[in-house]
């Protein structure tokens, strides 16, 4: 019963007919990141069908997916994998499961924190927050410096006007 509930929940939240997946593997063949997944996209679909919630929420696959949507474009059954991945990522965070790829979550949190604060992204402070979270201070330092020298990392943030509405959106998102 639990496994049927999980399938129904993910289908409802993603709007995707996951029950139709018959393992043709077109999704996995076109996936640029499949080599980095612990479970390739076709297996993720099967695991949702089988109700393997814990394994999925603890998987690296859900965080290594870059939402390029090649899989969904080619699926003969009209299943879009990317929104399914979004649902699984959201469930992972909501249920307090430790994400298998914390760096990715750190990045997205730093990025959205910047939006919460300014209504827009301010690269300099966003990247600093990300570096502080990951404690990786030397990675791509040369790239950052070159971008700065090309005038591509402004020092001062530009803000949206209606920051209260931005805060409302974050509140509604439980973030």
């Amino acid at each position: 019963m639990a496994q049927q509930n999980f399938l129904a929940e993910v289908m409802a939240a993603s709007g995707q007919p996951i029950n139709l997946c018959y393992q043709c593997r077109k999704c996995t063949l076109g996936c640029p990141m499949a080599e980095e997944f612990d479970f390739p996209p076709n297996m993720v679909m099967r695991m949702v069908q089988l109700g393997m919630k814990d394994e999925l929420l603890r998987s690296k696959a859900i965080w290594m997916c870059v939402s390029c949507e090649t899989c969904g474009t080619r699926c003969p059954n009209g299943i879009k994998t990317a929104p399914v991945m979004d649902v699984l990522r959201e469930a992972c965070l909501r249920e307090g499961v430790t994400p298998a790829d914390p760096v990715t979550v750190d990045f997205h949190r730093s990025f959205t924190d910047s939006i919460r604060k300014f209504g827009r992204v301010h690269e300099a402070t966003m990247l600093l927050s990300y570096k502080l979270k990951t404690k990786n201070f030397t990675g791509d330092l040369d790239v950052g410096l070159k971008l700065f020298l090309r005038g591509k990392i402004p020092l001062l943030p530009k803000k949206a006007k209606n920051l209260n509405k931005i805060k409302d959106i974050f509140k509604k998102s439980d973030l």
Partner: protein
Amino acid sequence: MKYSYYPGCTSHSTAIEYIEASLAVLQALGIELQELPDWSCCGAASAHNLSSTLALGLSAFNIAEAEKLGADLVIPCAGCFNNLARADYALRHDEQKRRELEELLGFTYSGKVAMLSVVDLIADPRWREQIKALVKKPLQGLKVVCYYGCAVVRPAEITGVDDVENPRRLDELMIALGAEVIDWSCKVDCCGGDLGLTHPDKATVLVNGIVDYAVAAGADCLVTSCALCQANVDIRQQRLPIMYFTELMAEAFQVGDRARWWKKHFNDPAGLF
């Protein structure tokens, strides 16, 4: 002709040259833009990774602003275009989501404002003759491959792309400028997106796979309309200049501060012209 305009966060950071080139080209075509009275980040790739409510809410914030002006919205950044078009699709097709977003943002969705990328706007055949007439310096002899990436292509029902596996609108624009467009295999491949920041080693592998094909095809440069593709592919290889399509249009039209834009690239394109 008047449109409303959403600049997006990269307009004052990583994609300054794209925005300046796009504005110069649209001005040359006599297309008038009015910036939205207020705008927020669209959420990029980060919002939807954490919360679908956040992703839709942030993009819909900007659609609500566009509704105030009532003119079709031009969105140069491919990622922003994808997010806003996605929110517009939800507002149009999902009544429950529309009601939630209208309540959250305090607006009424009319559905009268279309979401347009710059490619949507000027690759339309009705602009073709005018574009050809504006070419002062044809890009004769310049061999280009057009790289569309993900955000202006997928999903097709949201982007309105002409062909999801073999789009041609950028190719046709480049042909109108006199460039030699080479057919190749990686038009709609992914550059790695945010992996450039989270797992740069993996983005480097994807980027170099794409550039291998571009070089093998004999390209002098790669042409894109996506700020994230441009950044990833330009930063993580030293073999090819990576050009925004509007930069090449501006070069052919001989408009805008091109010498300054070239200096913002990692692989200097000055030698191409």
